[in-house]
């Protein structure tokens, strides 16, 4: 088998595994939320309720795929696909192990940041094309939230980049051989985590959707498969942010010898996915202006300071 075919197979395998994980997360989230609320969660369909996912899929496939008459049809159809595509594209740069990855871009982190900016379009266009005031409100909030949180999410990563001396994800992981970046870059980690939750618009930063205020925000008008895409996109987003945290701060595939590297990667990623779900179970949603002032008044200065101090220290020791 030549290089090219193998590479295509690996990329395809990653795609399949990711989509399976994203779908499985629907079940995991429901189970975990239930456990944290002293319930059991879905446990009837198949062993431990695992086939619940399939039942949900069948349900979503057979739902009427309805486009409201007042919507802007083309944009309405493109928006959900855009979300999933941008997130899947970001996964291209994630090194699961040195062998299992799609591309080894030397601008890895930049590529991720670019893709996550594009992801904001999905929310905005989805809300805009629905032609519904609640959707539009959700989209406006989404635009403001994602743009402002992206700023310092990028900033907080620069500390890591300075320490590793490269934007390439593989290099960053290898630079963590001696010490995971979580220790020197703790502030960066906290800021990236908060920004990541906001990027994935998960609770507590789900003011884009905010069921209690905006019905479902930007995807109020979506149904059937298109809603399913938004739904899967959300879980892919969680997986992406978790995978990136693992790669950038927790040494990616590095671990102790007795397990294969890819296993270490998955283990760490799942730990963070669970933290995401725990956040949803425990924390209330902040007000919109609180979110904004937290971002611009606290997190942005903090990330700049982190960048400054990291840069100074690295320069001093050179």
């Amino acid at each position: 088998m030549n290089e090219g075919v193998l590479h295509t197979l690996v990329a395809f395998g990653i795609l399949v595994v990711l989509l399976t994980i994203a779908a499985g997360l629907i079940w995991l989230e429901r189970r975990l939320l239930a456990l944290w609320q002293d319930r059991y969660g879905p446990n009837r369909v198949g062993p431990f309720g695992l086939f619940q996912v399939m039942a949900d899929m069948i349900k979503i496939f057979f739902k009427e795929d309805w486009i409201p008459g007042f919507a802007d049809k083309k944009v309405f159809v493109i928006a959900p696909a855009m979300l999933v595509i941008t997130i899947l594209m970001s996964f291209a740069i994630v090194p699961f192990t040195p062998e299992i990855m799609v591309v080894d871009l030397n601008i890895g982190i930049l590529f991720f940041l670019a893709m996550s900016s594009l992801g904001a379009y999905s929310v905005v266009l989805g809300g805009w094309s629905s032609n519904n005031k609640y959707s539009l409100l959700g989209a406006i909030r989404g635009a403001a939230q994602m743009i402002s949180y992206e700023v310092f999410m990028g900033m907080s990563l620069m500390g890591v980049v300075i320490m590793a001396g490269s934007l390439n994800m593989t290099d960053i992981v290898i630079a963590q051989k001696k010490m995971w970046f979580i220790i020197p870059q703790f502030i960066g980690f906290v800021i990236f985590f908060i920004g990541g939750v906001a990027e994935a618009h998960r609770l507590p930063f789900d003011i884009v959707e905010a069921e209690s205020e905006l019905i479902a925000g930007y995807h109020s008008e979506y149904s059937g498969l298109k809603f399913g895409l938004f739904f899967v996109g959300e879980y892919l987003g969680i997986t992406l942010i978790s995978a990136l945290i693992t790669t950038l701060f927790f040494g990616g595939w590095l671990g102790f010898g007795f397990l294969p590297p890819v296993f270490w990667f998955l283990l760490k990623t799942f730990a963070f996915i669970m933290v995401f779900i725990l956040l949803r179970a425990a924390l209330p949603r902040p007000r919109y202006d609180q979110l904004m002032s937290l971002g611009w008044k606290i997190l942005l200065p903090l990330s700049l300071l982190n960048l400054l101090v990291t840069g100074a220290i690295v320069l001093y020791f050179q």
Partner: protein
Amino acid sequence: MFSNLRSLWIVFLHLFRKRETVEYPEEKTELPARWRGRIVLTRDPDYEERCVGCYLCAAACPVDCISLQATEDENGRRYPEFFRINFSRCIFCGYCEEACPTYAIQLIPDFEMAEYDRQNLVYEKEDLLIEGQGKYHGYNFYKEAGVDFGVKKKGEGENENKPVDVRKLMP
């Protein structure tokens, strides 16, 4: 900030708590005796129907789901010719039980009445009428009431005085 971390931790600890869920079909909860569930029509201690067809339950029902027709037997005792409750409309409020003067209609602790066909939720008298006295034992309306309908003679009821002969002088 710290209160947020604290609530995260507390919520996490709920992982190890006892579950609140009752896994229903395998495990059943104990329903209290006065739980308002399926409606039954009961009989008195002499195994006669308690219902006297007074329509009070049908009048009290807020959703108008009781329908009945009163008739009389050879002694003049009233009973319902048909008695129909549409459980797809019943809200299990218990007003019918409160309105009933004879303890005939009663709500019992049973809720497992699901049906595939909505029409099957319309219960007729033979579905409603049970063999026993339900929640109130030993009560017989005709033993208390004054009129002779073949249950007791005049003046023989419980807590009833002998009839006074109005033509006699002596008390």
